[in-house]
């Protein structure tokens, strides 16, 4: 806009389109993703070939679904440390019911959905009722689930690995839906990528176009004020915890059907990766700010980096160092961009 408006209100500062773009939470993540992609693509031919792209979209997709749910929860001002181990709980439940006890796989899948939503509800209920930090509450859930995953599995099957999900009734259709691959340009792309895109679109719509989306921002920004203006804060938070555990159900099902086996230690430690992906995507640890697209981009950065390091052939002893450095880089880029954007608004 040129400043030709003759009688403009002097209190309105003209913010250029570029600055407005910069204020979006996901912009830093976009820049980070482009830089990371260009870097690895220039270093490795396979990385940019269809087979390579399929390979790094694979870990990004399941991580992305979880990162989006975790991002929504973080915008709402809460954490869920039990989200990683919950994917294992879901997988083990499916395995136990279908392969060990011979139930139809679909029944097992829906039973585990009920269980996951139940755990999510408990997380949310205890957090909102007690007012304790969800960090502590869900850490307790995390440890309990870790113990349950091992203890129950061992007690019922005498092993720590449930096999044979691929031989259960109803597997072919479920496998098509949750764990198949789609052939594009000679490479096998996983169906989970489609799910990931769908979840991104849905979450973005909810956040930016619905009343519930406003509630999420409101309870994360300032829960008390939100309550005072009539936002159902407790219900919103409980729904967010259930969204996270529901996503853990989706991802846990995908992993269980893909591997057809579930180990009792599955998913432990992944919860931090979800949070990292959400933060790269512009979520603030303090709540009230972030985006679903950003979390998806964070997951994309993580996927590209973790597979890219392998493609360029760096020594695996240093893998975690490079991964950490790249992630820090992405967060720094993000931070710098936001800082620049905020200066423009003063």
């Amino acid at each position: 806009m040129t400043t030709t408006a003759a009688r403009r209100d002097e209190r309105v500062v003209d913010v250029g389109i570029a600055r407005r773009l910069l204020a979006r939470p996901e912009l830093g993540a976009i820049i980070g993703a482009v830089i990371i992609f260009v870097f690895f693509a220039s270093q490795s031919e396979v990385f940019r070939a269809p087979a390579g792209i399929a390979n790094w979209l694979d870990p990004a997709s399941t991580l992305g679904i979880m990162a989006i749910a975790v991002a929504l929860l973080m915008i709402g001002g809460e954490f869920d440390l039990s989200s990683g181990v919950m994917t294992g709980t879901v997988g083990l439940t499916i395995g136990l019911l279908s392969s060990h006890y011979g139930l139809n796989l679909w029944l097992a899948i829906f039973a585990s959905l009920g269980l996951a939503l139940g755990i999510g509800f408990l997380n949310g209920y205890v957090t909102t009722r007690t007012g304790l930090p969800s960090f502590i509450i869900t850490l307790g859930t995390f440890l309990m689930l870790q113990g349950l995953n091992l203890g129950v599995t061992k007690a019922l099957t005498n092993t720590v690995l449930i096999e044979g999900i691929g031989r259960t009734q109803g597997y072919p259709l479920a496998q098509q839906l949750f764990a198949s691959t789609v052939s594009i340009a000679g490479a096998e792309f996983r169906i989970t990528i489609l799910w990931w895109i769908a979840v991104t679109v849905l979450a973005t719509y909810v956040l930016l176009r619905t009343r519930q989306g406003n509630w999420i921002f409101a309870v994360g920004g300032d829960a008390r004020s939100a309550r005072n203006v009539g936002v159902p804060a407790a219900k919103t938070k409980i729904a967010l915890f259930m969204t996270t555990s529901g996503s853990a159900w989706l991802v846990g099902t995908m992993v269980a059907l893909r591997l057809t086996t579930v180990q009792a230690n599955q998913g432990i430690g992944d919860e931090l990766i979800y949070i990292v992906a959400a933060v790269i995507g512009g979520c603030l640890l303090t709540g009230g700010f972030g985006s679903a697209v950003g979390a998806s981009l964070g997951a994309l950065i993580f996927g590209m980096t973790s597979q890219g390091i392998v493609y360029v052939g760096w020594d695996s002893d240093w893998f975690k160092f490079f991964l950490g450095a790249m992630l820090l880089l992405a967060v720094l880029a993000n931070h710098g961009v936001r800082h620049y954007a905020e200066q423009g608004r003063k």
Partner: protein
Amino acid sequence: MLTTKTLFAMFAMVQLSLVGCSKESSPAGGSGAASTGPSATGATGTTAESTPAKAAKNLTFALVSHANAGDKFWDVVKNGEEQAGKDLGVKVTYQGSGDPQKQAQLIDVAVSQKVDGLIVSMANPEALRPSIQKAVQAGIPVITINSGAEKSADLGAMTHVGQTEKVAGEAAGSRLAKKGLKHVLCVIHEAGNVGLEERCAGAKSKLEGGKVVNLQVSVSDLASATSTIAAKLQSDPSIDGALTLNNAVAGAAVNAIAQANRPTVTLATFDVDATILQNISAGKIFFAIDQQPYLQGYLPVTFLNLYRTNGTTVGGGQPVLTGPGFIDKANAELVQKYIQQGAR
């Protein structure tokens, strides 16, 4: 722009650290750019006109293990693999992840890079089935190592190099039974590791007239592992033996026995390192079972190289066993030397 500067600085740092740490003999420059796999030789091995020696120059073999980085045992495997790569003039890579899905994804990466041979440890064979079959279909020879012997041929692998967990567990159990032990703790240090459960089950089956009870600790938190074992020893005076399944945990068990003041408890372990040897010499550990991880890295590279340059296969459909070997007071001295070189 502050950010651009930071970006460049960070990249420069990463690049610099690469120059210092690339241990491979490959001519990877400071940029860390590895050639993206050799020119694909296809499923039939090397082309007729290239001499074996020349072919060997461009061969790349990838090892994908089920262990997270920093594991003592797997570091020795990696050393074996890298030494074989140096000795034979082939390029070798090592990757690993304890999460079966991530391990499958790492195998997919190796396949998409069209490596000339693949070495995989299978703690969870079914989970890796699609990825390994993809490799076999792409004409990449696969050798399985360490665990998953019984599924190796079924998945289309050339051969398996390792020790079978059950056999090793039985060997430990027999030896403990001979000593007349009645109540042995079997210390499992990774929740959900199937191979460890098999070792305990093997020991259990051979300890006739006695019982084996599993105890769960975490290998990544040795301090709490020590106190868990000590607490167990204090709480039950009938325990007269302990079997640990990893060298680090064995160290924790030695401390726990001292802490609990139960010097009569007989301790045996899987895997060896310098500390274990000292403890064997000092009589604190009865014996260690060595499955010689160095061989599990070195031999597969040799076998794959022979297959690629000579068309020969090893094992005749049976696994190539690298263990169990016993190390006790009699031979601890001999092993000591190699441990210091990271080769045992």
